[in-house]
């Protein structure tokens, strides 16, 4: 058995095993990455199974039982109007994860498409080159804004709802993907296969879609997971100032905000538990992000697989 393992290690070193096998190896060598996937899965399951698991309704107040400390009846206690905190905490991923994932995906799709177009036409002259230049300057202006104030203003002007929070998050994230994609495409555009595709008679749009985009997606994909975590923080922050999801909808940020005054007077549970859930979830996404980052970095991957193989040989000896 150890011998077989040493061989797989050696094969991984030469890069001939499947990607999945390497990923599993990495997960075994660095358990914290596996932890990231477990956390995110748990958050998704909590949201999905909340109606089955939650002992109380997440939105119904029971004024007779306000600010109960954690107990057998209310595992995480109740808040100032008597809503069960455990039920609300496990319902919240439905809102928080949905908003963050939808917002991030939307910004990635829009940002990548615009970024690809801009990158493809950046060095060209004429109307298209000029338009590409203009888009980049617009992105400069967007990024010069204080992000938080910008997001609040967007939500306020579009009217407060879940959809507008998604739009606001998508909007503030677009420049990230736009820039990543643009710089990738600008390098790939010079490749021979792109030239070949054009010479073969494919249109610009088709060349971008079939040959440029797939080769340029890497960095943008690596950004996704970290970005989801960051968007969850932004969603919660918006709710915290009252510009996001409104109470009594179960959402971590607004739960923290509503327990704010209680914390000062000593009832810590209405704010601490939702914040903990939020922090752990974002932590899970950043772990996934760093596993993807490692996976996409050939130098570090090579070093890691080499170390793993060496360790196995040691153990075998």
């Amino acid at each position: 058995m150890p011998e077989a393992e040493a061989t797989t290690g050696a094969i991984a070193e030469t890069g001939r095993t499947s990607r999945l096998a390497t990923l599993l190896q990495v997960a075994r060598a660095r358990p914290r990455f596996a932890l990231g996937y477990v956390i995110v899965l748990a958050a998704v399951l909590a949201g999905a199974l909340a109606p089955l698991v939650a002992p109380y309704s997440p939105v119904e107040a029971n004024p007779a039982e306000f600010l109960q400390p954690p107990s057998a009846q209310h595992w995480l206690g109740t808040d100032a109007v008597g809503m069960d905190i455990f039920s609300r905490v496990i319902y919240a991923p439905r809102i928080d994860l949905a908003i963050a994932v939808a917002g991030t995906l939307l910004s990635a799709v829009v940002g990548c498409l615009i970024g690809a177009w801009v990158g493809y036409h950046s060095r060209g002259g004429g109307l298209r080159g000029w338009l590409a230049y203009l888009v980049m300057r617009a992105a400069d202006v967007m990024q010069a804004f204080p992000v938080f104030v910008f997001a609040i203003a967007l939500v306020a002007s579009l009217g407060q709802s879940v959809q507008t929070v998604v739009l606001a998050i998508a909007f503030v994230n677009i420049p990230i993907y736009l820039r990543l994609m643009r710089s990738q495409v600008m390098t790939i555009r010079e490749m021979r296969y792109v030239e070949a595709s054009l010479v073969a008679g494919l249109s610009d749009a088709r060349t971008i879609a079939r040959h440029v985009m797939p080769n340029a997606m890497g960095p943008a994909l690596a950004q996704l997971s970290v970005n989801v975590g960051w968007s969850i923080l932004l969603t919660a922050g918006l709710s915290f100032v009252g510009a996001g999801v409104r109470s009594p909808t179960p959402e971590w940020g607004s739960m923290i905000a509503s327990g704010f005054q209680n914390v000062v007077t000593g009832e810590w549970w209405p704010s601490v538990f939702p914040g903990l859930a939020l922090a752990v979830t974002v932590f899970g996404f950043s772990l996934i992000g760093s596993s993807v980052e490692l996976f996409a970095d050939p130098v570090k991957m090579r070093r890691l697989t080499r170390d793993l193989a060496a360790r196995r040989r040691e153990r075998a000896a």
Partner: protein
Amino acid sequence: MRGLLPFLGQRMLFILPQLFGILLVSFFLIKSIPGDPAVLMLGPTATGDAVAALRTKLGLDHALPMQFWYFLVDLVHGDLGTSWQTTRPVLEDLLQRFPATLELVTFGLLLAILVGVPFGVASASHERGWLGRIANAYGLTAGALPDFWLALVLIFVFYTILQVVPAPLGRIDFAVLPPPTVTGFLTVDSLLAGDWAAFASAASHLCLPVLTLGLVNAGPILKMTQSTVERMLHSDYSRYEVLSGLPRGMVVRHALRNALPSIITIISVLYGYLLGGAVLVEIVFSWGGAGQYAVQGVLNSDIYPVLGFVLLSAIFSLFVYLAVDILYFAIDPRIGR
């Protein structure tokens, strides 16, 4: 320093259009928020005539592009408009609140640097040791913590339970007379005035918000320091130094020096970001800073405070970036010589 001046000139050339763009976007964005300031100012019982009269007085009866033009004309004359919430000129309000935010953010960032850089260097040079592991875990955790939540937890521990810091209500005790304004930083001003009571009060009010911002923002600084120093330590010149038998400390010091530009960049980005980004912490501590002022403006259709804040923080960020570019000239002998 030959290349510096033309470089700065070119930089300035780009600033004006960018500032204009920022003002244009924020003007139309805030104007598109539903809610008529005239109605909000006069309250629900106001007559239609009174509202119309006030709208004329405020210039709200002009078309939007005209309103923007008037705003620009006033701006050139140093008038940022008036906030209807505080009924004071925005410039006055901001001059009072901006230093409050700046004091908070500056000390918070200093703490973040003090935590992030040494930890980052340590973890890069002991990749596989326990220090490296702790630094890794810290980097990941700090990025995941909502700052407003961490602030609440700190308040609970240090105010509610231990009672070692004052209540999270503003920058100085109500009973203590604030020192005469020189810099706007209460700690600095009270030291200048030799007022120890005021200094103690201001410093104790600063503790928790600075701790919050410092702990959270040490994360990105740590990560950047770690990854850049690590890369430098794996580079050929570091390997050569190791092979030549130079002491470990010296190799790391040289790697750090070469990593400095990236570290300074992330610090400058954080500095600009935090002016608006610290707003949640400001709210938790009732800090009365500029970010809070702007958020209140957005939530109450009070446009001029928002425009003033956006303008001032954009200008501030630009100055920070300029300072950073000049710093590059100073620390990197390869640039401009």
